């Protein structure tokens, strides 16, 4: 069924009896050409682009719970392409371009809203670093604009410009960045993949990988063995656990990242805003809640919930630029488990096991990467070659010393 304004009109007149489920609930078949492990944003996007762009058939997505129940449902919904390094920026710009056409492409309202992102700076050194990053972005075809205090004051008059410790001196605006309705991304990709014949199999945890003579021939699951021509793993957060089934140790630690939302308020925050003197970012959801987040809790965790000190820390940072946030009540907080890689950048690559491919290490930048991650992983699965924008995301880069370390903090995953 194709969604359209006409369809809504027709259904409204006929008692909404014509709507069908957005995707089927098939039983697993004994063998598929491509088995994608992980029914999150990246896994579903991979299946979608495999079926649509690379015209592969007989594809399954295996999900241990329900689709979109992991990190694609636990993020702060921000999309952007404002990276500095050559290994990253072309990939994220590719992703942002895919976001821009996504809703037409998969015929689903994902509420892509390019409301702009503003990174504030609070010192001269930081201004210089932002100018450098802005230039790098422009060189890769993204947009960047340096704003001074007066310009920011016009757009965000309610910020605390004269904070004694961290006065706002200016900011780097990235107008094409913004937010997306995160669940709709999973649902849209699932529906698009399903329409092209992909079997989305939920409640089907992978319990083992069958590897014969160095080749992956299928996966053991809670619903029996499923044979696979090629297997793609996209289970960020649990990558170490899954790849351990193939005997691999990864350059990844799992960490918990918390996010927060206030009660619904009238429109106040026009775009996404980030604090430059710490780690805090905030946007307003379409329901009116202010959605914000900050640093990791900082210790290994698979718990999907964090502790109070980081809440206090994030709240203090919020108050440093958005004093009016102090009057809003916090409605909810939640935690997601992040694949924190050793250089803060992701991995999309083959593995030493033939027929087994790995996509993970997204740190806390996985949501914005969803379309490009799916596309590039589908490209790799189909052609055995990395996509031109993802050539740097090799798993052996740590051994070769060619890390992509945006923050320059070294092999300390909780600092990225």
């Amino acid at each position, binding site marked *: 069924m194709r969604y359209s304004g006409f369809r809504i009109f027709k259904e409204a007149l006929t008692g909404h009896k014509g709507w069908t489920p957005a995707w089927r609930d098939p039983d697993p078949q004994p063998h598929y050409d491509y088995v994608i492990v992980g029914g999150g944003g990246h896994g579903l996007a991979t299946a979608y682009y495999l079926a649509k762009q690379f015209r592969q058939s007989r594809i399954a997505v295996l999900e241990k719970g329900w689709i979109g129940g992991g990190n694609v449902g636990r993020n702060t919904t921000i999309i952007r392409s404002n990276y500095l390094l050559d290994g990253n920026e072309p990939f994220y710009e590719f992703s942002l371009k895919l976001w821009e056409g996504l809703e037409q492409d998969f015929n689903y309202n994902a509420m892509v809203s390019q409301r702009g992102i503003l990174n504030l700076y609070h010192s001269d050194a930081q201004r210089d670093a932002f100018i450098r990053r802005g230039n790098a972005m422009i060189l890769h075809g993204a947009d960047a604009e340096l704003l001074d205090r007066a310009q920011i004051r016009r757009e965000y008059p309610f910020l605390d410009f004269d904070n004694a410790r961290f006065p706002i001196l200016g900011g780097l605006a990235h107008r094409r960045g913004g937010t997306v309705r995160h669940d709709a991304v999973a649902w849209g990709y699932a529906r698009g993949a399903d329409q092209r014949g992909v079997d989305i199999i939920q409640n089907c945890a992978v319990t083992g990988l069958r590897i014969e003579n160095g080749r992956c021939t299928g996966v053991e699951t809670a619903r029996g063995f499923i044979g696979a021509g090629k297997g793609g793993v996209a289970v960020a957060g649990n990558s170490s656990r899954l790849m351990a089934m193939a005997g691999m*140790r990864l350059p990844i*630690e799992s960490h918990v990242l918390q996010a927060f939302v206030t009660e619904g308020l009238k429109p106040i925050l026009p775009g996404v805003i980030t604090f430059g003197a710490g780690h805090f970012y905030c946007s307003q959801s379409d329901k009116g809640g202010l959605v914000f987040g900050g640093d990791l809790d*900082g210790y*290994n965790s698979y*718990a999907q919930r964090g502790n109070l*000190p980081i809440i206090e820390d994030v709240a203090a940072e919020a108050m440093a630029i958005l004093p009016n946030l102090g009057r809003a009540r916090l409605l909810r907080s939640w935690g997601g488990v992040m694949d924190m890689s050793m250089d803060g950048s992701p991995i999309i690559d083959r593995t030493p096991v033939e027929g087994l491919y790995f996509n993970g290490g997204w740190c806390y930048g996985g949501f914005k990467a969803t379309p490009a991650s799916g596309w590039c992983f589908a490209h790799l699965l189909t052609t055995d070659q990395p996509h031109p924008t993802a050539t740097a995301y090799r798993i052996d880069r740590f051994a070769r010393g060619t890390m992509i370390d945006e923050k320059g903090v070294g092999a300390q*995953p909780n600092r990225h």
Partner: protein
Amino acid sequence: MIINHPLLGPCDAQEFTYLGDASLLHRPDGLADGAAQAFFDYAYLRDNPAGLHRELWFHEQGDRSWLVVTRDTLTHEITQVELASNVARREGRSR
């Protein structure tokens, strides 16, 4: 989280800095054969278990001792806390 320091008693985890897996106590020998591979493993690869995890915490805003904390990464429950120097000696290091 509360970390029960073996010398100081219960302390708030906020007083500590986290380093990571306690295997980092055993730095490879840089002059041994295969040192490059050993250092790659040491610096970059992690077991990253879901469950009990032995990890290094530094009491930065306390007595500046290093601790080996055994903590469940699924529940955050801490089951054992030892001085890292004791652990290192027990596991064969000279200091």
